[in-house]
């Protein structure tokens, strides 16, 4: 089974961020997890990694409502980067607004929409979707 090597958790709430990091490592057997408090920070690191040729993430777990650069803006910027390897992007949000779910479906970069909490059921679905990602 394929497991993530490097995951980005983009989330402004520190507690949610810590929890997500823990669960990714424990349940998804993620090797390394880096957390970022908003889209801007995650994007800055991602472009720097691309530029410097350091490790690129194969999984990004993205919140939607964040200051400075929110999830949507991150996705817009991300899609312009043209990464050499495939990255599996999951939205993990507490929003159940139908507009958000609809909007997410329009981004080809988004491989799954998850409503918090990240429970066993969601972890299982993440695992399954991650297997088919990049094929």
């Amino acid at each position, binding site marked *: 089974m394929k497991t993530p090597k490097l995951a980005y958790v983009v989330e402004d*709430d520190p*507690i*949610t961020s*810590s*929890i997500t990091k*823990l*669960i990714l490592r424990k349940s998804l057997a993620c090797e390394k997890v880096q957390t970022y408090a*908003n889209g801007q920070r995650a994007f800055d690191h991602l472009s720097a990694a691309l530029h410097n040729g350091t490790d690129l993430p194969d999984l990004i777990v993205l919140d939607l*409502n964040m*200051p*400075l650069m*929110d999830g949507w*803006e991150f996705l817009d910027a991300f899609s312009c980067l043209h990464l050499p390897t495939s990255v599996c992007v999951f939205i993990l*949000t*507490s*929003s*159940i*607004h139908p507009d958000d779910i609809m909007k997410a479906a329009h981004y080809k970069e988004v491989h799954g929409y998850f*409503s*918090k*909490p*990240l*429970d066993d059921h969601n972890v299982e679905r993440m695992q399954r979707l991650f297997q088919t990602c990049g094929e």
Partner: protein
Amino acid sequence: MNQGSAEAELYQHLMTNTVIFDFLQTQVLDGLWYQDVQAPTHEHDWVSPTFWRTLGYEPDQVPAGPTPWRATMHPADLALAQLHLEACLQDPQHVYDHLLRCTHRDGSVVWLRGQGLLLHNEQGTPTRLLVALRNITKEKHAEAYAEEIANHYGLILSNQSVYIVKTDTRGDYTYANDIFYERFGYGQDIIGTSSLLSIIEEDRQKCLAMVMRCFEEPEVGHQVILRKLSSDNTVKSNHWELKGTLNEQGQVEEILCVGYDVTLLVENLQKSQHLLDVTSQQNIRLQNFAYIISHNIRSHSANLTSLVQLLTEAEDEEQHAMFLQMLQTSTQKLAETIVNLSDIVAVNSNVNKPKERRFLKAEIDRTLEALSVLIHQHKITMDVQVPADLAITVVPAYLDSILLNLISNAVKYRAPQRPAVIRLRTYQEPSFTVLEVQDNGLGIDMVKNRAKLFGMYKTFHDNEDARGVGLFITKNQIEAMQGSITVESEVGVGSTFKVYFNENA
């Protein structure tokens, strides 16, 4: 035979033969009443069989009694007949002619017209009265019916305030009814003037279009609502039906316009439309609000669920303690969120909080007083150009909160590299007093953030103590007072917030 001899011959016949008299009294008249004017008992009076037939009695069915005909006659009319007789006795010139109501055998009223001739004996003393009776019941009924119809339509026309107007083909008045003159304060001098110009300007095109259709399709009603200034200087909406009337050559000769006042109807329609708009807006707000609540509560409850799970699976004491600490923080945050939400619910559910007149300048001064330490500490220049006597109608607590929020935001997001200036000024717009709060601070990227500026939990600067509820609450409070808020901002230049206080609501 010439005319004179014919007349003589007829009179000769009449003298010698009763055929003619019989024909007249049985076929032409509906009864004869022959009275002895000297016998007050009337026992010697006589009525003809035709009279009885008129009342539905065959000769062998005539009621018994000394004077049975009198029983069929209306007492008041009998008295009237007596008066006419006496008048004739007094004055030979008096015309004996009156109405006599009789009761038909079936109980209905038969109206007879009696015309009398007083007969004298050889001494010239009046002795007999011959009354010729004609049944005019049908005419009476027709007359009553016509009167009823006239009353009916008269009532309708006078009570319904229907305008009836005619114009020539150029649209100049040729006729108007009284109600039209009265309601719009016109005199006869409007005849010959343009009906189009009496309509308010915005509706003239609509009116013209309808008149054109009268030419295309005359004799069919074309309906339109037009507004017009009434004599009390209010604008009235009138519903009109326009029809072209044709002359003998089949060309439109006149436009007939029948109209009535629908001002109340139109006003109510506009009111309900407004209400519908307000309700739809409120509905959208409430729905968004429901999503916001669900989002905010959910984000914390999700953390709690996960933490409890992690706590049960904790591998050592250290992890256990860490999760417990996180659990504590999460419950605290949930409690804070609930407090924030209840603030917002309070604003949203108390749309009808009582408003009071407040002097804006005095309220601003109080807010600056409360922020004086911060203002002094950051060396901020305050430039307040608000007239001291300017009063606005507000929910006082909301005004406090709005001023505190906008001014403290301007302080919080000042640009560190230049001396901060916050400028407050007011001006009037139709129905609104506008307060402008302008700063030269960091500014907000409006291209990116316009849509979310007033959203909940949106923060735009990397500021640790930004809660992301301030502008959301401010907007809700302003909207609860039927006002609005707008913003112009540029990164590195500053922001200008404009608060529109509704002075009509």
